[in-house]
């Protein structure tokens, strides 16, 4: 398979303009005849659906939640980056591009990453116009703060609820287009399969989560905006319903899956406290602006944090990375925490956490300033743990968070299936092997609002003839397969719950395919997951039927896909014999324990093709024309 990234010609700063100049247009009268399906109604999906409808396309939008306002973009706390240089601190599009490329350890495309930075400034304009109440200075201008991995202040925020505010803006714009009759919204609906006609994406099969009915929808193009798949680890910062099923179904129908093992472990989440725990709540990275991370210098220190004097505390990020300190990027901060915890310096009841301490910041700025900046995060911390973090340090621990990997897409955000697009977190394009904080809201929004609506024309212009029809045998066939799959799950009638198997899968994935990986462990993990799969299909128990609301059935169907995805993630991690970004192979590290990247051998995007249960690797070589990859140092 030839992977054509379709990078436009010209200088880096001209590429997107050159692309737009040459892209095909469709006249408004014809756009009305074209249908687009958007699966997912988060920031990327709602933005894309609303904008495509504004342009004149007929849009069907789907989400599994009861309303588009619930999508997990809502939970992003810290902010959204943009190269506005409002702080006059030397920022520029180029610097933001470089920070992002370096942050991703030079495993993303230059042209995509540059476009992300280029479109960041108009995105802020857009959201301000849509009524997002971003933080302001007293003079009325927009305020910024810092985030990990950069030395300028380019993060825009709305308290600790930036994701919520951006999502609600997108949701409002989407419902505006629903009211206008341009978008048909299907809530409580889950995509069960993708339908191909003559090799092109022409529709989906959907399960109505209230009635259990299977429904067919046809369109001229299908856009997946289904978010990340870190629930493969079970315990993660994601919503419980987040899943990888839509992209997994697309993968099995021919879409290549890129860099599946590149998953970000976030350094500042609440630690696990029991086996029954379902969720690891994130504490925004923005807290690292003012909080200092430390552990005791003595192993197994039993004293309370307040009893440990300054000279007996190890501020290990400041010690190891003096120039970035507590704002080291996420992969590095997480690994450093793991290193201390594994070495026996962890704190908390289960010794699985480190301290995030605001004592110095409160002394310096006063309690009121800290409350103004992070009040809602401190409240949230207190609600969950019962602890007042103004008085005693927060306990934090690394947790599975973001998926850099996803469906392989070209510069137009099209997958390897013609007519199938992937936007937002569910694609692999801009973040390389590690995503910088506050770039996630950015990518989801830019993909949905600005890029896809400009690139989809290029495909749809050639799709004018032959409107799709749900009576086509391909729809019948796909629906039958879905029905068989559902019946098979319900027919097992075994003895173990879905959650039992999810815990098992999560344990293996967290142990062998998270912050650090090695050959032996990954090989063992693949064996173990195969066993979990075999046992799942023999012994899972799902009560209730398929023609009703059945939350256990939903979980079982999602888990069946996660199990297969887990195998691919381990396969990918095993194949990449280097360390880069979040992918840390223990065999490939420098003398001081940093990632050892091997550019001569592994400067490519791994794109996996599904072939009857096997995975075949294709390589998209990364060409660096404008930037020379260097050793990524934050010391």
């Amino acid at each position, binding site marked *: 398979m030839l992977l054509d990234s379709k990078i436009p010609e010209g200088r880096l700063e001209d590429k997107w303009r050159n692309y737009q100049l040459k892209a095909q247009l469709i006249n408004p009268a014809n756009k009305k005849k074209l249908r687009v399906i958007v699966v997912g109604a988060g920031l990327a999906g709602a933005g894309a659906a609303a904008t495509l409808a504004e342009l004149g396309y007929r849009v069907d939008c789907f989400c599994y939640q009861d309303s588009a306002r619930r999508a997990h973009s809502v939970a992003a706390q810290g902010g959204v980056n943009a190269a506005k240089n409002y702080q006059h601190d030397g920022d520029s599009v180029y610097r933001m591009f470089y920070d992002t490329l370096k942050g991703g350890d030079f495993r993303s495309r230059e042209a995509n990453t540059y476009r992300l930075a280029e479109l960041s400034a108009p995105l802020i304009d857009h959201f301000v*116009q849509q009524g997002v109440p971003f933080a302001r200075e007293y003079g009325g201008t927009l305020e910024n703060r810092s985030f990990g991995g950069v030395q300028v202040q380019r993060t825009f925020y*709305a308290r600790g609820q930036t994701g919520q505010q951006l999502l609600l803006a997108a949701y409002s714009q989407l419902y505006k287009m629903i009211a206008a009759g341009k978008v048909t919204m299907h809530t409580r609906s889950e995509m069960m399969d993708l339908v191909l006609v003559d090799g092109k994406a022409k529709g989906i099969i959907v399960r109505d989560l209230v009635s259990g009915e299977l429904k067919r929808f046809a369109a001229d193009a299908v856009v997946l905006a289904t978010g990340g798949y870190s629930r493969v680890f079970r315990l993660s910062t994601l919503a419980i319903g987040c899943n990888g099923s839509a992209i997994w179904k697309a993968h099995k129908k021919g879409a290549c899956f890129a860099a599946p093992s590149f998953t970000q472990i976030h350094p500042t989440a609440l630690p696990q406290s029991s086996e029954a725990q379902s969720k690891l*709540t994130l504490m925004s990275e923005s807290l690292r602006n003012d909080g200092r991370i430390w552990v005791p210098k003595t192993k197994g220190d039993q004293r309370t944090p307040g009893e440990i004097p300054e000279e007996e505390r190890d501020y290990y990020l400041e010690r190891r990375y003096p120039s970035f300190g507590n704002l080291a990027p996420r992969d590095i901060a997480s690994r450093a925490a793991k290193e201390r915890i594994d070495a026996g310096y962890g704190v908390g009841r289960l010794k699985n956490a480190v301290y995030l301490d605001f004592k110095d910041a409160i002394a310096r700025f006063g309690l009121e300033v800290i409350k103004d900046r992070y009040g809602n995060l401190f409240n949230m911390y207190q609600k*969950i743990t019962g602890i007042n973090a103004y008085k005693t340090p927060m306990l934090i621990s690394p947790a599975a968070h973001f998926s850099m990997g996803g469906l392989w897409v070209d510069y137009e955000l099209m997958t390897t299936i013609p007519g199938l697009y992937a936007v937002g977190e569910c694609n692999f394009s801009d973040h390389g092997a590690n995503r910088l904080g506050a770039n996630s809201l950015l990518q989801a929004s830019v993909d949905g609002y600005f890029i896809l609506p400009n690139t989809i024309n290029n495909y749809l212009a050639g799709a004018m003839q032959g409107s799709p029809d749900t009576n086509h045998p391909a729809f019948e066939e796909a629906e039958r397969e879905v029905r068989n799959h559902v019946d098979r799950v319900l027919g097992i009638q075994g003895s173990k719950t879905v959650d039992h198997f999810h815990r098992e899968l999560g344990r293996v994935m967290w142990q062998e395919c998270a912050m650090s990986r090695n050959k032996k462990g990954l090989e063992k993990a693949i064996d173990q997951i195969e066993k979990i799969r075999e046992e799942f299909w023999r012994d899972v128990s*799902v009560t209730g039927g398929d023609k009703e609301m059945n939350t256990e059935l939903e979980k079982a169907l999602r888990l069946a896909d996660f199990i297969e995805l887990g195998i691919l993630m381990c396969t990918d991690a095993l194949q990449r014999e280097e360390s880069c970004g979040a992918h840390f192979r223990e065999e490939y590290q420098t003398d001081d324990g940093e990632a050892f990247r091997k550019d001569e051998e592994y400067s490519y995007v791994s794109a996996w093709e599904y072939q009857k249960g096997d995975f075949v690797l294709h390589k998209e070589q990364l060409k660096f024309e404008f930037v020379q990859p260097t050793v990524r140092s934050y010391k």
Partner: protein
Amino acid sequence: MQVTFKIWRQNGPKDKGKFESYPVDDLTDDMSFLEALDHLNERLVVAGKQVIAFEYDCREGICGQCGIFINGRAHGPHDHMTTCQLHMRSFKDGDTIVVEPWRAASFPIIKDLVVDRSAFDRIIEKGAYISSQTGTAPEANAILIPKSVADKAMDAAACIGCGACVATCKNSSAALFTAAKINHLNRLPQGKAEQHTRVKEMTWQMNLEGFGSCTFTGACEVECPEGISISNIAELNARLLKSKISGS
């Protein structure tokens, strides 16, 4: 820790429904309330029984999808908290905990503890936006917004759309929800162009959905997970009057 959940079971909108009791042991203090229900559901599956349908998604208090009436209070015994943030340490060993869905005519029950809150979306549809297309925005700092105005807009914008305000209100009023959205947008300069139609259309839809009127009992602001102030409703009423006078 051992408790007895007394849970409302209803197999669809037309089913009559009834309470059923479920004693559950081996719970721990640090389990969240929803994790305790997960635990109960796993027991039910092993016993070959249908699970209890209840809603959740983010489990960190921001998506607004969870919402259960617990011991007679929306989202449980604490003020300003979502159900997912409630932990079992708030209950005592041996407690009986009464678990009901949101009860409001405008939120019909789908199954067990799951209700249909799409009425909220239909209120939003009527004007909770700024009619400006993607790609048409002016430079972000071209319009200055004083910090106090942005902060007040944000206070109202924080609404998570969970419906606790409606569920707790004796009139099932959606005034706090509607007011919060209108005030968020109408306080900002970008929202001014459509301020009067927004107020009229959204409040009209609110009435059409069958939500009751507000009689200022203040119950909503106590249960609101974001602590959105009831003064928003007074502000809404003033805006409604103004929009009628303006005649637009």
